[in-house]
């Protein structure tokens, strides 16, 4: 199939807004990459559409990670997806935000097999629960670790340690 123009960021912006006007919270370009914030329930429809679109073909999941913004009330947690379309050589970033009381997110493992461990890592670090994930266990730390260490409330030094007395360190 011959294409008249290769899609660029403005093409994707128009296409996404045309298809999902009510699902997109914001869409802007930063440092050359299109940054789309979508509502959480629209995640699977939007990503599926991006992947299966005839022209866009975002068939490669580059990375997936969580972010914790403790001061953003009702939007404390975020999951960020970087997608890449090899055909058009264009990257896109998709964010979803959620409240700390509702950390359930649909899994992407049905669309990208590689999302498996990336979601396990995100679950481990932030406690985000990926619904439908085949094996949602923590992956890097010890099995019985019962907190999510990359949340901002945990300091770098282990708070549970009792063998370090600050007075010996001049603190």
């Amino acid at each position, binding site marked *: 199939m011959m294409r008249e123009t290769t899609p660029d960021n403005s093409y994707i912006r128009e296409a996404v807004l045309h298809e999902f006007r009510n699902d997109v919270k914001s869409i802007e370009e*930063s*440092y050359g*990459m299109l*940054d789309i914030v979508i509502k959480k329930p629209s995640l699977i429809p939007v990503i599926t559409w991006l992947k299966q679109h005839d022209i866009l073909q975002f*068939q*490669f*999941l*580059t*990375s997936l*990670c969580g*972010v*914790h913004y403790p001061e953003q009330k009702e939007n404390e947690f975020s999951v*960020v997806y*970087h997608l890449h379309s*090899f055909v058009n*050589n264009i*990257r896109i*970033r998709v964010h979803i935000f959620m409240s700390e009381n509702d950390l359930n997110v649909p899994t992407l493992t049905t669309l*990208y*097999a*590689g999302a*498996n*461990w*990336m979601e396990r*890592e995100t679950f481990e*670090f932030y406690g985000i629960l990926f619904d439908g994930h085949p094996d949602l266990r923590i*992956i*890097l*730390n010890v099995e019985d670790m019962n907190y999510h*260490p*990359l949340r901002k409330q945990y300091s*770098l030094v282990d708070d549970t340690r009792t063998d370090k007395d600050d007075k010996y360190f001049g603190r």
Partner: protein
Amino acid sequence: MINISDDNFHHSHTLNGHIETEEDIRQYNYLNLGPTHPATHGIFQNVLKMDGEIIVEAEPTIGYIHRAFEKLAENRPFYQVTTITDRLNYCSSPINNIGWHLTVEKLLGVQTPKRVDYMRVIIMELARIADHIICNSVVAVDTGALTGFLYVFQWREKIYDIYEEICGARLTTNIGRVGGFERDFSEKVFQRIHALLEEFPTALKEFESLVMRNRIFMDRTINVGKITAERAMEYSFTGPNLRAAGVDYDVRVMSPYCSYQDFDFTIPVGSSGDTYDRFCVRQEEMWQSMDIIRQALKNLPEGNFHADVPEFYLPPKEDVYNTMEGLIWHFKIVMGEINVPKGQVYQCVEGGNGELGFYLISDGGRQPFRLHLRRPCFIYYQAYPEMIKGSMLSDAILTMSSMNVIAGELDA
């Protein structure tokens, strides 16, 4: 006489009149491959479900050397994050260091001089050669050929001598600074690079003639640990592993950084995604890297060896001792008291084993608000159980070493 043949074994199971299927009487063994199996090059564990010598299922456990890099990075000034990146893929630390410098430069909007780009290209391609030397010679070791490994390993040492001449360190290099290099390449650096380009091709050729068309090596690697291009894409494979499956994706070409668009090189691809193809792709990449270094040396532009970034680039010592301005900047930089602009950037480089990505969120403070490291081998190692399913135990070890899984990067 006790008969322990298979016939007798099958017979004993049908005594009570119930004919059992083959699946019922098949007995599986569980085998712990690791932690620290001598051939797995790091601390890996795989619980293998074995049917005799055939692997039925594998369950990898990772994280033995997890050091919380992403948490550490949130508690350090930007320039101190470089030393964390050293410890990701420690076979090619300079690529990781420069990837991080590029990320910060992208956030700050720094434009580096051409000379810096070319110097970086030289170092990164040397690092790629060092990385591939280790990986490929170790693949040969796992097939039983130790000689080639010991022979080419000395050229890795010579590459480390070049790093040492440039930055003073050999393994965890912490090479360069945000904005460029702390000093220009000395005459000795150029001499050593020229000597390497002179001598290494002969050694690499000898290594190739030792293994590449060797019957034993080919029998051990062809059709072992295969993955199709479609499956590799679904698993987000990158680097030589993806190219061996036939997808010509290389970050240096698709998203050029450090003026890679100025260089003329080819991206080798395989066709079947097996251990042999991965080996051959790496082998050819070493030749291409040497070609890139030759081009960079030939066309090395004159100019400054660093960009003008007073917020990150330490002023010369004379200025620190003699001017107020210099002393203030020196203090601010060393203490990490630099506010960087607010923003989100994603920067990726072609690491030794795939696309190494840095997703940096800055809230305008002195430390990264969030740094996510896209570690290529963490992502592609999850396909390992699928790749070794149905193969022999000895092939599993070979598959792992040909995937170039580096524990430091895997566990972060």
